[in-house]
């Protein structure tokens, strides 16, 4: 039987990809960000931790989908997915290799569970999908595991509610558990944390909101999932709405989780960045040491 062993959250900021590409990831600005991911990278390459398959929840940033097709929940069921050209040429990273057996199984199961999925078989993936892979796996010539891209609309309003996302996660969990093959499955929730990329309010960061979100995600996702969209918009900036996707990951982990690692950094370009490793309590491993890392201005402010 397949199991969801781990949830990972990660921002998917395009500038992180650019930092890798331009060889600036060790500089003063980007160094602390990549340092904060180092424990995740180390952890995932340890024996037993490498997933067979990642269900990678992200939003397409007007890349595979334009104004002509706006699917709420999608799942990529193809053999592979090439990186998209988002205006500066495709990211020079390996193709994402899918897991059609598991992907179709999840798609079918979710539809039986009253989620109105949109299945895609020919789809390019953007930074939302590939930047988290780069941050966690570095720069291998091919990704070390299979990936099922799971795009969620958070661009055109209304996106799905936090509640709907949380329940979807629970159904993903059930779907994975009914897959007969013995697979270590991760669910990754990407995007966030607080940021706004548009208008005179661009640059908004809300550290209190973000840290509370992390806390509630671990301890009380049930309540967190009931937060209305307007609160994300007011508190976490217009693009902070991406955080609803973290609730899909969280829903897939069951009632109680252990937080193995939490990294929080301000700023990465326009954004407050969060990256976590969570595991279902019954099967959780040991927390990393240190268990919580803050850096950038988030650290400075904490030290005040």
């Amino acid at each position, binding site marked *: 039987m397949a199991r969801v062993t781990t949830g990972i959250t990660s921002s998917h900021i395009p500038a992180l990809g650019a930092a890798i590409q331009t060889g600036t990831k060790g500089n003063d600005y980007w160094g602390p960000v990549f340092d904060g991911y180092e424990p995740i990278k180390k952890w995932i390459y340890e024996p037993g931790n490498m997933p067979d398959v990642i269900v990678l929840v992200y939003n397409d940033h007007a890349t595979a989908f334009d104004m002509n097709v706006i699917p709420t929940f999608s799942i990529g069921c193809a053999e592979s997915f090439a990186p998209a*050209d988002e205006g500066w040429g495709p990211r020079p990273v390996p193709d994402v290799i899918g897991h059609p057996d598991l992907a179709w199984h999840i798609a079918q199961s979710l539809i039986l569970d009253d989620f109105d999925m949109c299945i895609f078989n020919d789809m390019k993936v953007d930074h939302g999908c590939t930047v988290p892979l780069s941050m966690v796996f570095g720069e291998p010539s091919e990704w070390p595991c299979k990936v099922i891209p799971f795009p969620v609309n958070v661009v055109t309003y209304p996106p799905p509610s936090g509640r709907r996302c949380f329940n979807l996660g629970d159904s993903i969990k059930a779907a994975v558990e009914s897959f007969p093959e013995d697979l270590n499955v991760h669910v990754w929730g990407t995007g966030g944390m607080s940021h706004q990329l548009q208008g005179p309010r661009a640059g908004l960061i809300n550290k209190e*909101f973000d840290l509370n979100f992390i806390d509630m995600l671990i301890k009380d996702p049930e309540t967190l999932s009931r937060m209305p969209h307007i609160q994300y918009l007011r508190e976490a900036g217009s693009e902070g709405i991406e955080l609803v996707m973290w609730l899909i990951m969280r829903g897939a982990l069951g009632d109680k989780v252990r937080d193995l690692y939490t990294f929080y950094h301000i700023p990465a370009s326009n954004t407050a960045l969060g990256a976590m490793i969570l595991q279902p309590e019954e099967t959780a491993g040991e927390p990393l040491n240190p268990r919580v890392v803050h850096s950038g201005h988030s650290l400075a*402010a904490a030290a005040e």
Partner: protein
Amino acid sequence: MSDEKKKERIDIHAYLAEFDDIPGTRVFTAQRARKGYWLNQFAMSLMKEENRQKFKEDNAAYLENWNLTDAAKKAVLARDYNAMIDEGGNVYFLSKLFSADGQSFQTAAGSMTGMTPEEYAQMMINGGRSPEGVRSIKEKY
């Protein structure tokens, strides 16, 4: 009828109205999506290298291929992102434009705030824009 049917429904008019209460922010609702349809589709076209070349050779001529309002054309030519968003543009679509220009998300986002790129970058390093006072126009908090 069924239990599911007795669910409490969100009032969509109230839901949408609240979005206008956030200072300096345009939420990409149906209304904006419809207004910006061609502007956003123009931006999407820049995902192809050959289109980027054509666009670079002659911005104005390229824009004639798209069913844009004069305001949208003007905004694109001036790279005025606030004006593009007023015309229904969405930043993820428009990112194809500033990426084709070789500009970063930070430069583009900063250009909408009235700050210089340096001032904006420094604000971010200092912890970003505080939400204090910019959560709600009406409630001023």
